[in-house]
């Protein structure tokens, strides 16, 4: 049986020292012992408590993820590849002005603005960066200020730590824009069982972002240096479908970096992540990748509706003419599922390579049905050992 | 109280925690006894002792000869503790069945106790130990008396007042008054005399 929670020392041993830390910030902001500094989670002092929220909330500590999945979503909606699906669409902001200077169709910003305008939430945590490109979570309480933060930098900001720091009574009135690891951490918060801790209905809304990997800031900064660019010069980044390049927008023009070069800048922890669609969010949003005309699809998002709350918000967005919706063809959903299944298989393969065992899957349980489905056991190798 | 005279060497240990005014108290005491015609040696540990550690002064009061500045184990006649635990610590090294102890009841917790790694014995445990291991002991709340007079560090003077009243050492109020008049300003003199009297009043 897997322990429900553990200590800061175990967090260090099982996550930080194993290069499994995603930098999501779930263990930060809870106490004075841990901080994020220079893209790293740093333990300042030893906390000798046997069980801590830091360990319980971390998306890379062992937990019964199948149980979390089933307790947060309708069992009938669950798919092995991309989690719960109540609906799947292409979407973009209805107002063309809202599609300017955003990552794709501007869907996330529209949904957040609407959720705030309609009183579903009264504040939102989005990812922001300072001049040194250090990412952090920013609590926005004015819906008119959301638009400045709608770009993706392909890095993880310790958003969950910002959520940890807001007063408890505000938490369920707060929406969070989360990467898959961050959405997992927030789901673990909702379901954690620690004596004296009960926050089952928080946060108020989680809008998940599709994510294949994130960049290690240090390594990426070195790579940019080779192209004569610094982090501060960046105005945007994108991965256009089918081109196998990372587009880097700067004040002085566009630079295309081959993905092979970007690959070694990927955060080690991301190689062990099974979730590319933020399966624990209320709604998950990503770039639309479907169709022959990828330039045209660039202005659209794909969106997965997962929970009742997510469904309620999307329906509201359609009714209020905030979002423009296109029915997605079934083949688009299948394509997404195939890609997500591929990521799961690869992550499990990497995990087995790291642990040298199909029994020890680090933070995952070998009897989790999703794990069982995608774990390829190399029979020959198994017989040898 | 009347000043007594002694013929046998008295071995006195003043102990406390750095910052409690232990050195000042032992020097005041020594000056009074020198004035009274005794030969006194003080063995002190200070320097690092300001930094919250245990502090101890050895006073050896003889009517005729100079003694080593260190009292041998088991050789104390009187122990004056500005802090209960330190009084007990000194007793376990320098105590003997004839020793008399006067101590301030207010604890100063060691860092190890504050962090939770060690535990501080209860007031009763400490009293019981003195009951078993000394010929006579007095416990007074000198820190509260000092606080009432406006400064907790006056507890060392409160202890000197109490010590005078016990009659364990050959000095009295008049001798103390004469001593502090030499060095202190008028308002400091007044509050020190009040502290002395407060201490004396605590010994029944």
């Amino acid at each position, binding site marked *: 049986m897997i322990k429900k929670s553990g200590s800061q020392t175990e967090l260090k041993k099982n996550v930080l020292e194993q290069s499994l830390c995603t930098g999501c910030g779930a263990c930060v902001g809870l106490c004075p*012992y841990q*901080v994020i*500094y220079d893209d790293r989670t*740093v333990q300042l002092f030893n906390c000798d408590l046997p069980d801590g929220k830091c360990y319980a909330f971390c998306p890379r500590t062992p937990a019964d993820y199948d149980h979390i999945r089933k307790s947060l979503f309708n069992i009938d909606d669950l798919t092995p590849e991309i989690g719960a699906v109540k609906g799947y669409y292409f979407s973009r902001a209805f107002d063309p002005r809202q599609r300017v200077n955003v990552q794709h169709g501007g869907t996330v910003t529209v949904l957040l603005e609407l959720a705030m305008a309609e009183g579903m939430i009264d504040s939102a945590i989005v990812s922001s960066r300072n001049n040194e490109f250090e990412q952090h979570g920013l609590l926005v309480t004015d819906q008119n200020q959301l638009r400045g933060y709608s770009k993706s930098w392909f890095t993880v900001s310790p958003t969950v730590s910002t959520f940890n720091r807001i007063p408890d009574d505000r938490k369920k009135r707060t929406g969070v824009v989360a990467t898959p690891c961050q959405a997992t951490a927030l789901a673990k918060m909702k379901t954690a069982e620690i004596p004296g801790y009960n926050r089952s209905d928080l946060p108020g809304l989680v809008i998940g972002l599709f994510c294949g990997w994130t960049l290690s800031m240090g390594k990426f900064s070195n790579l940019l240096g080779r192209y004569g660019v610094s982090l501060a010069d960046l105005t945007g980044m994108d991965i256009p479908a089918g081109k196998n390049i990372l587009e880097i927008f700067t004040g002085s023009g566009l630079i295309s970096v081959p993905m092979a070069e970007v690959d070694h800048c990927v955060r080690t922890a991301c190689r062990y992540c099974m979730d590319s669609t933020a399966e624990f969010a209320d709604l998950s949003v990503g770039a639309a990748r479907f169709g022959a005309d990828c330039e045209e699809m660039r202005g659209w998002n794909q969106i997965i509706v997962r929970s009742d709350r997510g469904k309620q918000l999307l329906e509201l967005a359609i009714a209020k003419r905030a979002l423009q919706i296109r029915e997605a063809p079934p083949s688009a959903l299948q394509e997404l599922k195939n890609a997500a299944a591929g990521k799961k298989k690869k992550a499990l393969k990497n995990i087995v390579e790291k642990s040298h065992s199909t029994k020890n899957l680090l933070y995952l349980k070998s009897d989790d049905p999703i794990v069982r489905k995608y774990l390829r056991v190399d029979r020959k190798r198994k017989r040898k050992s | 109280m009347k000043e007594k005279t002694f013929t046998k060497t008295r071995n006195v240990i003043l102990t406390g925690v750095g910052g409690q005014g232990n050195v000042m108290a032992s020097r005041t005491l020594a000056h009074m006894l020198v004035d009274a015609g005794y030969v006194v040696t003080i063995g002190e540990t200070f320097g690092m002792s300001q*930094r*919250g550690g245990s502090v101890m002064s050895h006073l050896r009061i003889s009517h005729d000869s100079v003694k080593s500045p260190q009292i041998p184990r088991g050789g104390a006649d009187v122990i004056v503790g500005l802090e209960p*635990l330190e009084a007990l610590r000194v007793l376990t090294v320098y105590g*003997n069945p004839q020793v008399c102890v006067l101590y301030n009841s207010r604890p100063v917790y060691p860092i190890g106790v504050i962090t*939770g790694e060690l535990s501080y014995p209860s007031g009763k445990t400490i009293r019981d130990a003195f009951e078993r291991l000394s010929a006579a002991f007095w416990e007074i709340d000198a820190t509260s008396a000092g*606080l009432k007079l406006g400064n907790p560090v006056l507890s060392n003077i409160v202890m000197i007042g109490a010590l005078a009243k016990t009659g364990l050492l050959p000095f009295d109020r008049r001798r103390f008054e004469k001593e502090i008049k030499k060095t202190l300003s008028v308002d400091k003199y007044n509050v020190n005399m009040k502290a002395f009297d407060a201490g004396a009043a605590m010994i029944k």
Partner: protein
Amino acid sequence: MSKLLSPDRSTVLFLGNEAIARGALEAGIQVATGYPGTPSSEVIESLADVARERNLYVEWSVNEKVALEVAAAASFAGLRSMAVMKQNGVNVASDFLLHLTASGTRGGIVLVSCEDPGALSSVNEGESRYFASMLEMPLLEPADFQEAKDITKWAFELSETIGNVVMLRSVTRMSHASGNVTCGKLPTKRRKAGFEYDGPVMDSKTGPMISTPVVAKHVLRQQKLKDVIVEEVMPFLEENVKVLASGIAGRIGIKTFFGKYDGTLPFAGELNPDVVADALGRILKVKRKFLPADYLKDIQKTAAMIPAREQTFCAGCPHRASFWNIHNAIALDGRKGFVCGDIGCYSMAALSPATGYHTMPTLHSMGSGTGLASGFAKLAQFGLDKPILTVCGDSTFYHAVIPALINAQHNRADITFIVLDNAGTAMTGFQPHPGLSVSALKDVVPAVDIAAICKAIGAKVAVSDPFDLAATGRILTSFLADKGSLKVLILRQACALSPEKKGKKTFDVRVDESLCLGDACGCNRLCTRIFRCPALTWDRNKKKAVVDEVICAGCGVCASICPQQAIVKTEVSGPG
């Protein structure tokens, strides 16, 4: 090819000093330091010539003390090293040498003293051999050139066997004469530098490099010496009395001597009345009268329940805040940097490691922290890639740090140097120092500005208030990230016991119990478990922190570390 790198088994004519240098190379030396002085200089000069080829670090240090410190840093990091000087240089180095022999060493380290009998090129006929006897350090003296090479090589092995520095003495007629030397093999491997200090205090391989517990370490050192060397270190008085007695034996006859040699008295530790009385008792065969057995048993039982009272920084001490900042900056940096300690109240950070938040693993003589740091910083080429910090007090800065700081700058040692400026010589009772505009005679005198000196040396200089945790933390983290230069941070805040501060509180500090989380997850008593201020105590019954008003000095720093803002400070209004 340099003559010094002649092949194995070739016979070469070497200067005595070259023979010593060759012996050091054969021993696998990686760091050599020195200060020039006849007749010693050729040892460093010849090693410097082959430094690039043999991948050595060689420096002319600012003085002999710093030279020994730089070499000692290499030894602490497991490398073999050598410090070379002339006889009177040993006097300069002796302050550090005393502490170095007390803390012990790791990689083989040899102190070479080239002396000048007859004062052929000196203004003295100084003798440094007595340091060896005084500091209980093996002394090797080669008799010819071959031996000069061989004995130097062996000296490093001896040093590693006894875990301490070994002294090699040469004289002008050896150092500056030449003779035949048959060379041995030059090693091909070199060691990787690594400095361990987290182990137990008595573990000479992994513990902190400090001289305490002094007596226990002294005993250990003597034990190691006895293991290898038959001849013991001599008790000065006992020996001299014996010499005197033998001279007049005809008149007084043969006498029996009781002392350290026959075990009547211990070789280490204080000779207090109890030790002397016990010894006399044994000589005179009388038993000391002692306490009744049941009383003795009871006090032993009682002593066992008395908690130890560890020394710590006073309530309101600026050093606590400074080390809090230093610890956090090192932790954030993540490369496991450490602080080389120095002499002052802040030595407590090494003597009682939790007080300095386990940041300060070395402690030797005044000014040695900066000299050691200067040496550690040069070990990056051997794999010791971590930020090196050092601290000193304001008074210590003037006493012995300036040469070491110049050494660091001139030799491009990348260190972060922190002056814990508490506005006086706090430890000894606030005597004036050159930074203050008052002299011992209470005259008004020019104050010498630390920041200006550091700027003149060429360092990056910043000044901050250690009580301002946020500002100080920012400077320190940026200094640690700023590689390749000498950084100086002056942390200014007067000592809590200083005449201007003593007894005056800046803030009234109290704990709001309703906000205090106590030992729950979310805090777990950061203030009382980790911060360790004697005024901030723990109420076991309520399970809340509590400020002891009697001890609190009112600095208010604890209010900035409480994650719950449960520690409340209110400014004390000034007089009038």
